[in-house]
């Protein structure tokens, strides 16, 4: 199941070129056997029109995941707001497996109560249902949380709708300068906010495990440096600004350390920086390019890219240093590996017939499976957006 979920996240997300601040996430392909579901418009109990179309947000989330085939509103036989109003047979004939109904009430003081029920259309029974209090600014995030609950109930794995995404935009200004921004937005591209703005390159944003900080690389001042910035405080700390490359920050699972690439000693090597003791520990020492460190979920080992064998391949090393072992052997270019949450798979960029694609390698069997079909599937499409680890 997790494999499938990973596939959805990696293979089906295409990031549109960003001309405006608003992020557009387009899904170009669904999966075979997507679950048919209908999300009826939520009944509104308040004056005027509802402040947010909760059902539309939920519907778009489910549709965008590729795992659901949602029924367009125009094709709905009715608009039930409660279970009592549902004629299950009408929905059965449309081939809808599941139906979501709900209500939104205003409590007057800017607060709202949202209730929803997820129903099995064939059995005519409720699978799950919640009543959630929320406020006007949080209506969309409440809708995303409901989509997560539906996703988890039906597919058995948590959804990732109520997360946020970090991304970098580069826009040429009329004066000829390029403005480069680090932005965060809801997982559906709404509510974009710029948290760093500069005219020099920014790269490698990485969320801390608690979702409160972002580490990134900035070239402001004409030289790369690694920063850690509080997402909600805006305060930042310069972590390293050695001569040469300071890049590829990767948070340890406990959020205490950053693995990184530094070339201060003459060529890029992997180091671990302890954010509390501020001590730097060398992990690799080789004249080749060693970069793109990523932690195993248990925090005990690190995978990284190295061209010590002539071409870039993935190697694994203990998080305490020591001898590195090569773990990719298929194809002549493998880079930017990261672990799946269960630690069983690596996702990586591979070159196949001159084209750069996203692949998954099973760590136990060593078998690699190429997932994407593009030719430059690395930047800016699949890798660049970084998902926040927590649900807002």
């Amino acid at each position: 199941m997790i494999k499938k979920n990973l596939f959805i996240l990696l293979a089906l997300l295409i990031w549109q070129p960003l001309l405006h601040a608003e992020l557009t996430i387009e899904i170009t392909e669904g999966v075979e056997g997507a679950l048919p579901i209908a999300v009826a418009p939520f009944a509104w109990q308040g004056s005027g029109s509802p402040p947010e179309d909760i059902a539309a947000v939920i519907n778009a989330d489910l549709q965008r995941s590729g795992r659901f085939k949602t029924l367009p509103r125009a094709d709905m036989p009715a608009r039930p707001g409660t279970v009592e109003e549902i004629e299950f047979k009408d929905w059965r004939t449309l081939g809808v497996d599941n139906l979501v109904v709900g209500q939104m009430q205003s409590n007057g003081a800017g607060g709202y109560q949202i209730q929803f029920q997820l129903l099995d259309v064939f059995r005519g029974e409720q699978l799950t249902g919640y009543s959630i209090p929320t406020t006007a600014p949080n209506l969309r995030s409440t809708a995303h949380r409901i989509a997560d609950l539906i996703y988890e109930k039906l597919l058995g794995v948590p959804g990732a709708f109520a997360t946020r995404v970090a991304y970098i935009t580069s826009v040429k200004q009329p004066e000829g300068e390029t403005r480069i921004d680090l932005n965060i937005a809801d997982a559906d591209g709404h509510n974009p906010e710029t948290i760093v703005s500069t005219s020099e390159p920014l790269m490698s944003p990485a969320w801390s495990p608690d979702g409160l900080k972002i580490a990134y690389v900035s070239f402001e001042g004409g030289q790369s440096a690694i920063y850690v910035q509080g997402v909600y405080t805006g305060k930042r700390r310069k972590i390293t600004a050695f001569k040469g490359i300071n890049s590829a920050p990767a948070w340890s699972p406990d959020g205490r350390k950053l693995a990184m690439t530094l070339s201060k000693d003459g060529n890029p090597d992997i180091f671990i920086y302890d954010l509390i003791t501020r001590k730097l520990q060398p992990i690799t020492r080789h004249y080749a390019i060693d970069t793109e460190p990523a932690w195993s979920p248990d925090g005990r080992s690190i995978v990284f890219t190295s061209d010590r064998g002539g071409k870039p391949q993935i190697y694994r090393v203990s998080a305490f240093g020591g001898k590195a072992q090569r773990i990719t052997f298929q194809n002549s270019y493998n880079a930017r590996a990261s672990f799946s949450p269960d630690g069983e798979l690596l996702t990586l960029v591979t070159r196949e017939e001159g084209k750069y694609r996203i692949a998954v390698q099973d760590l136990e069997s060593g078998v690699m499976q190429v997932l994407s079909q593009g030719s430059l599937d690395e930047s800016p499409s699949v890798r660049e957006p970084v998902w926040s680890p927590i649900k807002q």
Partner: protein
Amino acid sequence: MNKVLILWAPLLFSLLLVAGCSSTPTSEAAGAEVSEQSTGADGTAGGEASTSAASQSGEWYGDPLENPNSLLATRVIYFDFDQSTVRTDYLDVIQAHADYLAANPQMVVRLEGHADEKGTREYNLGLGENRANAVRSLMLAQGVSDNQLIVVSYGEERSAAFEHNDESWALNRRVELIY
């Protein structure tokens, strides 16, 4: 005999040009050879060629860095795909810059390494640094002092060309010399 030479001269000239182009696009040495041989071969009928040769050897009184006909005017060194070895056709350009820097120890040059967009961003940062370091090593060997050279890699973050094709990629695999 003279007629044959005159007929052959333009052909020889163009053949040499083609040879110069196909081996390496910016081979300064090959270019010099072309003008020398063409003036030598035709003698009487080489008005255009001898004019250009004269201006090339014209004296320059300003800052050598500003001389458009000097090898110092070449400020970008291009690299082959996935390579960080300096191509032989750039050795004389690097030599010229090294000579200039050695003679002007107060001058500092920034060597900015770049990569094309193929492959991952972080690896390309390493590749860009390798390229800049390759130029740096050659300059150090020519007597330039370490504190005159600043190496910065931008990887694929600062493209010179923005299409997704071979031409653009070739223009992006480079080291820029910035005085």
